[in-house]
Structure formats: structure tokens, C-alpha cells
């Protein structure tokens, strides 16, 4: 499931602010520890935020995500500075698969760019951690 919402169609104060949200299931060949999941979440936030700035975003307004599996729930976000990613929540046991929801809201990039950067950030960061996106809906 992916979502693309046109924010600036009716309200002038929404001009130039675009968002993209997506939900997927991520799997791993072997169980991923809570520490590793926290690192993945933080690096994902940083990857998306950094790419938005490189692409010319005026402001990383909010990139946020949550990771949920049978025994754990982590939520992550970053605002403004890509290096300020914060991860909180319940660790749980090592997980072989989890649901990932990501929401990027960016000022100064097109909706298309926000979508492409978010998708690319997820794929690249998952790859770095040996994770694979399996299907869109849990």
C-alpha cells in the first residue's frame, strides 16, 4: 500500500509542501536484533532526509516511521537536520519480518521527488542491512 496525497490543491498555505507515505513488510534471512532494527530505523531517516536536502528541499519538515513486529514496536523520526534521527519504543525479541510504515513531509520538493526519494531510501537502507521488502500489505 502506498499513498500519494495532493496537499496543495485547495489551501494556499500548503503550497510547496508535499508528502508521501508507504507501508510494506520487510523480511530478513535471519532474525534481526532490536539494536540492529534501531540502527536501521535511524539510518533510514537519515538517508531520506539527506537525499531530500541534496535534491534541493528547503526544509526536511518531518520524516517519520514505525516498525512493528510480534513483540516490538519502534518509532523513528527526524526534523530539519538529517543527523538528528531519533528512535524510541519497545525493543522486543529478534524479528525475521516486520511491518514498516514511512511518512515523509518535505517543503520545497515536488510530490514526485518526495515519493522517489522515500522509496529509494527504503530500498537502499534495507539493502545495507540485508533486508528485503516482500509485499505491500501485511
Amino acid at each position, binding site marked *: 500500500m502506498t499513498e500519494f*496525497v495532493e496537499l496543495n490543491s485547495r489551501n*494556499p498555505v500548503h503550497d510547496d509542501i508535499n508528502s508521501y507515505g508507504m507501508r510494506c513488510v520487510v523480511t530478513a534471512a535471519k532474525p534481526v536484533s532490536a539494536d540492529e532494527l534501531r540502527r536501521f530505523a535511524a539510518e533510514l531517516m537519515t538517508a531520506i532526509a539527506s537525499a531530500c536536502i541534496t535534491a534541493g528541499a528547503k526544509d526536511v519538515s518531518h520524516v517519520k516511521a514505525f516498525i512493528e513486529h510480534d513483540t516490538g514496536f519502534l518509532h523513528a523520526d527526524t526534523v530539519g537536520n538529517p543527523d538528528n534521527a531519533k528512535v524510541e519504543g519497545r525493543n522486543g525479541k529478534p524479528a525475521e519480518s516486520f511491518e514498516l510504515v514511512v511518512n515523509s513531509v518535505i517543503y520545497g520538493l515536488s510530490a514526485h521527488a518526495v515519493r522517489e526519494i522515500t522509496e529509494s531510501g527504503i530500498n537502499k537502507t534495507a539493502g545495507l542491512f540485508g533486508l528485503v521488502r516482500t509485499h505491500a500489505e501485511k
Partner: protein
Amino acid sequence: MKIVQIAGYLGSGKTTLIIALSRKVAEAGMKVAILVNDVGAVPVDGKVIEEYGLTVKDIGGGCICCQVAGTMIRTLETLAKGPKPEMIIIEPTGIAVPESIRQTVMMNAGKTGAVLGPTIVLFDTTRTDKLLTYDTLKRLVTTQIRDADIVALSKVDLSSADATDHAERAVRELNQTAKIIRLSTVTGEGLAVLADQMREVTVQA
């Protein structure tokens, strides 16, 4: 059923504050529900708040200040008929115009039985110049501040005293009548005052 709106630009700390305040208000014996509107239809904030054991209604698919205002009223009606909370905290999207939401709530007060509590707007003290610089951003954030009954200067634990003073002066220039409260959900500064304001203040339409 009192409606309290906690607004503010994206990343200003609304969700974290709502989790902290809801607990304080609930501890004082009030039945609280939270209505969350996320940008986009894949909600994150509502799920995070639920994780802390709070009652949440999620509204996605657009902004409740304009695109899905009708959904907000139907949700308030459902809450009024069903769980009947004494207080509903509305967390709009970070790009919402608080006055639009206030007007929608008041125009439909007959259907929902709602009374209006204060409109609290968060302002991130770590980003004062950024938020008040770019054209669109400045217009939006300025509008949010002007619509506030209370401005909570957020993340003061991350700001120097000078930066917090700078933020307060900027806010005061934009809104001469709002109560300004310095807030940190990390240290707890300002939380008790805000919780008292939510319980005690009723705003006339």
C-alpha cells in the same frame, strides 16, 4: 465534551506532548480521547499514541483544516454518541490552520455538543529563524501562531536561553494576547501548567 486543539508546524513535538498531557489529564480523572490527523493516508502518529495505551481515532487522506473537515465532524459525532469522552484532544497535521478547525468545530457544536477549550500551538525554539524565513513556511507558521490562545515554546531543553528568548520575542510580535509557556517534554517544564489550562480554560466562540 471539551475540544482542545494542539497544533503547530511539522516536527514541533505535538505527538510527544499529547502523549504526556493525555496521561496528566487522565490522571486527574478525566476521560480523554485523541483525534489524530496525519499528512497522508498511512498514519504514523496515531499508531505511536495508541502504543502508549491511549484511545485514538485516526483521520487520514488529507488535512482536517480543509480537505477532510467533514470527516472530523463525523468522528466527533461518533465519539460524542459512543465513548463520550470528557475531553477530545485534536492533533491536526503540522500544516493545518488552527482557526479553520476551530470554526468547523464551533459551527457543528449543535451536532457534537462540543465546548471549546484552548487552541494550543507549538513553536519549535530550535528552528525559529528557519520557520520564519521562507515565504510559504513563514505564512503558515505565522498563521498558526496568530490563531493560538496558548503558544507552547517547545524543545526548550535543546535551546540555549538566548535562543528561547529569541523565539519568545518572535512569537510575541506575532500574537500579543496569547499565553506563552516554555515547554520541554524531556524535563517536564511547562507540562503541569498546560494540563491545567486544558482542563480549566473554556473559549467563547
